[in-house]
């Protein structure tokens, strides 16, 4: 029987979600690994772009920075931040992967601070390009470990927009149409967002986990798909390519 760790499972699940022939805006780490794996498995025509200006690189290895030379290695274009952000704003970017210290039931993210604005317990990096990507890109993906510290009823700070206070509220906000949270991939489950309410909903659980395990590790009430399925396990091929070609130094999958 195949042995793999939860990070490998998350990356492989994310890779499968990326439609061939689409464009994904990624950062470093797990999301980049997922995109590179997708290119080598189900989505050979997946196009990767980076916030700092790298467009359609042929990644020789995982970049350390969103702006290092790997991000435009043999690329179609080495542009600028405005090149990438303009493409996102015009609807050219189909997927983006974002994360944060906290996420709520509408997929809103906090990467700014823990505690109160006036006197934060912990100051975090801030939005970076996350708020822009989440505002512009069609489908926002989140990869994160499942626990109550991260999945909270109320964010300490709303850095990056999910469905805000529900789908209607995002529509009213003035944010671009045809964009919003799409999938949340954790070590226990895969979740999407209910059509009308925009609330997080468990659609599949990973091997060894049940819906109640997921709910028990979430700080807010989760919806459950009418037909809850098991998340398909990684194949030998996916694991081999991930380990040998995408992350041979185990920088991400070794965590």
């Amino acid at each position, binding site marked *: 029987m195949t042995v793999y760790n939860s990070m490998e499972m998350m990356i492989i699940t994310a890779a499968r979600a990326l439609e061939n022939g689409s464009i994904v805006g990624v950062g470093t780490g797990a999301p980049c690994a997922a995109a590179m794996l997708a290119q080598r498995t189900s989505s050979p*025509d997946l196009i990767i772009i980076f916030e700092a200006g790298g467009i*359609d690189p042929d990644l020789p290895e995982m970049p350390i920075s969103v702006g290092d030379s790997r991000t435009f290695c*043999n690329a179609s*274009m*080495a542009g600028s931040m405005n090149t990438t952000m303009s493409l996102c*704003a*015009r*609807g050219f970017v*189909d997927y983006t992967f974002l994360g944060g210290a906290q996420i709520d039931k509408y997929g809103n993210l906090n990467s700014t601070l823990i505690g109160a604005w006036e006197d934060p317990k912990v100051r975090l990096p801030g939005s970076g390009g996350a708020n822009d990507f989440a505002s512009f890109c069609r489908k926002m993906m989140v990869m994160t470990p499942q626990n109550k510290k991260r999945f909270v009823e109320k964010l300490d700070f709303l850095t990056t927009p999910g469905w805000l206070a529900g789908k209607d509220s995002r529509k009213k906000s003035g944010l671009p149409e*045809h964009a919003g949270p799409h999938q949340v991939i954790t070590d226990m489950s895969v979740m999407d967002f209910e059509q009308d309410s925009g609330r997080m909903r468990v659609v599949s659980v990973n091997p060894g986990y049940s819906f109640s395990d997921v709910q028990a590790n979430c700080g807010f009430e989760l919806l459950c798909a009418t037909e809850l399925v098991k998340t398909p396990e990684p194949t030998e091929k996916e694991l081999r390519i991930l380990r040998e070609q995408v992350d041979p130094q185990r920088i991400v999958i070794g965590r």
Partner: protein
Amino acid sequence: MDIQEKGKGPLFTDPDPDAARAFFMKKSRNKTDKRMTLKQAVETFVQDGNYLGIGGFGANRTPVAVCHEIVRQRKKNLGFAGHTATHDMQILSAGKVFNRIDMAYGIGLEARGLSKSARQYMESGQVEVCEWTNYALSLRLQAAAMGVPFLPIRSMLGTQTFEHSGAVNVYCPFTGKKIVLVPALSPDVSFIHVHEADIYGNGLFEGIAVADIELAHASKRLILTCERLVSHRAMTRKPHRTDIPYFIVDAVCEVPFGAYPGTMPYEYFSDEVHLKDWLDAENDPEKLAVFLQKNIYGCEDFSDYIQVNGGMKRLQELRHLELLIKSEIKDK
């Protein structure tokens, strides 16, 4: 937003970025071989009634071959953005293919004089006009390229150019001073002539960019004509030289000397003799008809047109002019 004053001019295109998003979301991102003949490209992507964007400036790196093909195919009721439209407008006016124009500069050929065809056509009442400035049109394209509905500009204020434009002015919330907002402009289809392109549509040009980067991204469809095709490898070896990324491009047409009789930087200088013939022919409708038959309607494609006007020998002279090389070789 409190509008203080609003231009009376018509908007020929929808400035709403969400409409553009809906279109771009469906556009293929695939790296497919996009080569076509120019005939095919214009047949496929230019529909009667479309709004066009034309690259270059004056008669410099202008996609002249595309203008010929549009006239040859006798397209109708087109609109276009005239940001220093010179020889291109002269061609389109001779063919009477458009009925509306966002006008910043037209009719004139800069220092060369005025085009009678363009002037008479503009005065004929057959063309609906909206007034702009060159920079305003450039910013309208940039707004569309950025996926925003407008950009601010500090010119046009206090003039009739503003009154007859489609712009508005408002008080700036940060300075309290009046400022003009120009609406995004997304052409249905645009044409840009570049030095090099690969078969997927990555494009590169030399010299000034004018407003071509903005135009490329603002346009729903984009046809690149290029002096020469190069390998994808050659493009990706120097990604910082790519001016236009492949996935915004719909067709790639290799059209050597595609900017003739205009200038192509480092390749060939404008053919002032032929441009003068154009202006002269316009003085007499019958002369013009004969001239158009000879140079456009009677030509199978653009290479015929080049042949009719001296072919490689003439182009060699124009190359020397461009590179400031004296053509005479002294006897030894």
